[in-house]
């Protein structure tokens, strides 16, 4: 059976529930599925975390290397983020070079971390203009059951907080914890008919008309947003989503810091 063909019946069922403010798994519209965060799961990585949001399963690993800084930030370390939608995780993910979905995912996670100044990149300079630490975040999606943006952002942040810079391996002094300054949390909301649903499950995500991911920091300030899908939001809906994202982010952040 092609899982991608959501029957009209199923679609209508989700629509009807949404109109009544209900969901297929009995969650409230603004309720996340259970979140599990396990750090330090890969010992070949300098930092790692496996994150479950419901049955969505993401593994994030951080590797630290040495390289040249960007010309316009000669005294700062470099951050690069990559996401792999490997075909192990879903019948719809194809083998081959990254496609637009994985590129968007990586770039949205990257912006959330970068724009909030999560990593103190100035502490990662070894020799100005010549040599800096490079932080590679690699996101490996293992099981895709909706809301990859939030799971990946959470995984990336958790892996960063788990990371030790292996300076001694490169004979550059003592190892040290990667300096993490902020804790940006992404919250994704979709619109199904006229109802806003936080943390969409796969079936909800598929039939939703529009998606908005809002990344907020520990001061409740907004650090990144990304709207997706071919539908629209009203200005009021956007404002409502930002507010609920701030609230949920506070809860989800505790999964990382605690």
């Amino acid at each position, binding site marked *: 059976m092609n899982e991608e063909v959501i029957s009209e019946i199923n679609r209508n069922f989700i629509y009807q529930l949404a109109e009544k403010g209900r969901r297929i798994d009995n969650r409230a519209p603004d309720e996340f599925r259970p979140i599990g965060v396990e750090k330090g799961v890969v010992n070949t990585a300098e930092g790692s975390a496996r994150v479950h949001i419901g049955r969505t399963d993401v593994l994030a690993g951080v590797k630290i290397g040495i390289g040249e800084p960007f010309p316009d930030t000669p005294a700062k370390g470099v951050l690069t983020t990559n996401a792999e939608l490997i075909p192990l995780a879903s019948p719809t993910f194809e083998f081959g070079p990254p496609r637009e979905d994985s590129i*968007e995912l990586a770039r949205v996670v990257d*912006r959330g971390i970068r*724009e909030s100044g999560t990593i103190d990149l100035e502490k990662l300079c070894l020799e100005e203009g010549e040599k800096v630490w490079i932080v590679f975040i690699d996101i490996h999606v293992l099981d895709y059951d909706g809301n990859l943006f939030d799971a990946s952002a959470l995984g990336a942040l958790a892996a960063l907080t788990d990371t030790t810079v292996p300076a001694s391996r490169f004979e550059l002094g003592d190892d040290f914890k990667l300096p993490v300054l902020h804790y940006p949390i992404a919250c994704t909301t979709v619109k199904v008919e006229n109802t806003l649903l936080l943390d969409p499950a796969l079936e909800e995500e598929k039939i939703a008309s529009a998606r908005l991911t809002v990344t907020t920091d520990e001061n409740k300030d*907004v650090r*990144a*947003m990304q709207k997706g899908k071919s539908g*629209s939001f009203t200005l009021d809906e956007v404002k409502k989503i930002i507010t609920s994202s*701030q609230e949920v982010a506070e809860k989800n952040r505790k999964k990382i810091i605690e």
Partner: protein
Amino acid sequence: MGDSGDLKLIDDSGKRLDGRKLDELRPIKIEANVLRRADGSAYLEWGGNKILAAVYGPREAHPRHLQDPTKAIVQCRYNMAAFSVMDRKRPGPDRRSVEISKILSEALAYVVFTEQFPRTSIDVFIEVLQADAGTRCSGLTAASVALADAGIPMKDLIVSCAFGKVGGKVVLDLYKEEDNLGEADVPIAVVPRTEEIVLLQMDGHLTVEELNHGLTMTMDACKYIYGLQRDALKNRYSTGMDNEENPKEASK
């Protein structure tokens, strides 16, 4: 978002480095129907941006597995010319242009009556010839004019504009220097008649109040630009790059 150092991006009288007020747009010029081969086209200058947009279709979608039996697909390709930026850009798509192409495609699909053209593709090509920040907004604004010029049935045009935060102030429509040194950038696209938001991105650092203020300011700017788009469509048979003849008609 960068670091402005000692540079003062907003002066004491509340003016920006290029002399604009906080809520002032750069000059915008739009022409429709500027290309011969395309089914629809538009040329747009917006501050230092020079953008060409072309539409082909509805035409058979290739490869076939992309075809949707229930509707047309809208495929937008955003591309920067190698010489459109200060440091030469390697030709061909990069990760940034892939992401932008995706979100522009999604935004445009909202206003096109795609159900009327099952199995087809409506291809939109945006070429950035000269870039000065805000190219995705400029490109999207031009693209929707090109769609209308191609006679594609649409609910409405799409208008796109960005606001940002510079020197601690929320300002409209960043140009290059502000984009490099500013604290936030928020590109938005709207359906002007209904005020629906079809594109929204943000990076930087904003409070919710700043965000709300910026959104409102940008919505107003979009309505102004909407007028320019409609003027361009009205004028398409009287102005343009070759105003002595109507090239589309001549080619038939």
